[in-house]
């Protein structure tokens, strides 16, 4: 099975391990991610201004090009996923805006595409039971905090992925890998997102509360589906440690990295230099 894949700006550079592990795990599960040719930026934020049609041009072009190749588009980055899925919702529900934007980009788009996150592919196309059947190294006993953040789940009606108040897609995946998903109150909170560039203090505080919440519930590892969350939760740990005596860090991995390890991938692919808190000791302690 092949899926048209939209990597976005970060997945071939700062978020390369997210992409590499996602592709490797996909191959082990029997599907390939095929890069959409000549893709452009998704826009990085969904325009919340109703009069800002220009900001829909770039994501709509991505949708239109993907549609020429099939009826599904897969993303890994939660930001791209949010922007493309919400734009697609506008295209499906607002004929006037669709006509305006497609006329501007000079590309037809019938709004017939389905935008899927990699997690949705695992749940709805492959099935978590089939994933469980491919596990080579059971993550038994590993206490993992799934971090949803804001973009995967909200707004519920448009993302239509899971319940923002009580999501389970991440937990179900972790359970399929044999890990013990940690339930903690901050799992769908905001990490500070792009505010890290503008209000560093806000992003550091938000990220600290998330790390502390997961730690408090016994997590040894946190996984995310977003390069922005990964950066805030990981990079801010140096700042958190400065502001708090006895601060205990928490390793943060992309969920694909853990998935790939469980499916037989080499844990040595995880580069400790990319992490403030080295994830390898936690994995090694479980014999991974």
């Amino acid at each position: 099975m092949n899926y048209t894949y939209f990597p976005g700006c970060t997945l071939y550079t700062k978020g390369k391990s997210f992409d590499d592990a996602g592709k490797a795990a996909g191959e082990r599960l029997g599907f390939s991610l095929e890069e959409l040719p000549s893709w452009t930026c998704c826009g990085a934020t969904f325009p919340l201004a109703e009069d800002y049609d220009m900001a829909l041009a770039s994501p709509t072009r991505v949708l239109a090009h993907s549609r020429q190749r099939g009826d599904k588009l897969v993303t890994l980055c939660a930001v791209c996923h949010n922007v493309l899925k919400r734009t697609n919702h506008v295209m499906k529900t607002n004929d006037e805006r669709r006509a305006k934007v497609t006329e501007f980009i000079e590309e037809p788009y019938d709004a017939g595409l389905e935008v899927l996150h990699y997690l949705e592919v695992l749940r709805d196309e492959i099935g978590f039971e089939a994933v469980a059947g491919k596990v080579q190294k059971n993550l038994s006993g590993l206490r993992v905090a799934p971090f949803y953040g804001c973009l995967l789940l909200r707004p519920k009606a448009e993302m239509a992925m899971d319940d923002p108040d009580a999501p389970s897609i991440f937990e179900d995946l972790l359970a399929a890998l044999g890990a013990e998903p940690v339930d903690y109150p901050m799992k769908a909170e905001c990490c500070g997102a792009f505010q890290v560039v503008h209000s560093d203090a806000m992003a550091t505080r938000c990220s600290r509360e998330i790390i502390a919440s997961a730690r408090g519930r016994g997590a040894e590892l946190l996984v995310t589906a977003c390069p922005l969350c990964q950066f805030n939760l990981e990079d801010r740990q140096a700042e958190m440690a400065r502001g708090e005596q006895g601060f205990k860090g928490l390793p943060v991995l992309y969920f694909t990295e853990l998935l790939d390890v469980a499916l037989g991938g080499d844990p040595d692919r995880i580069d400790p230099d990319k992490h403030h808190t080295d994830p390898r000791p936690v994995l090694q302690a479980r014999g991974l």
Partner: protein
Amino acid sequence: MRVKLDGDRVRNDRIRKVEEIADQSVYRCYQCGKCSAACPATPEMDMLPSQVIRYLQLGMDDKVFAANTPWICASCLQCMTVCPKGVDLARLMEAIRMLQLRKGQNQIEIRAFDRAYLERAPQIAMISAYRKFLSLS
């Protein structure tokens, strides 16, 4: 706090513009305060999210446009998720930002970021921030 209302300011052009850009009516809100309770960013804000909408209802948009609140909002949508009246407050925040950005009131300075920071920060952080904090002109 004593507030003197000015009837001429209620529903003024700028507030109507905010509602138009946001595609939301500020009058749907009945001030339950759930948005402020849910918002993860209030410690850094100088006006609560529920106060932003209250001041817009009362024609006190000057206070709202002087507040840092819309610039601290990360559009995480916790507020719209909990709102019992279906108000998408994040859209109102975006409209308030837009009206300032469209006048060239940039909130960040690209040249201020040092090389070490840019080498660490993922592209998505920088591009999202440029979209949220820089004018289009």
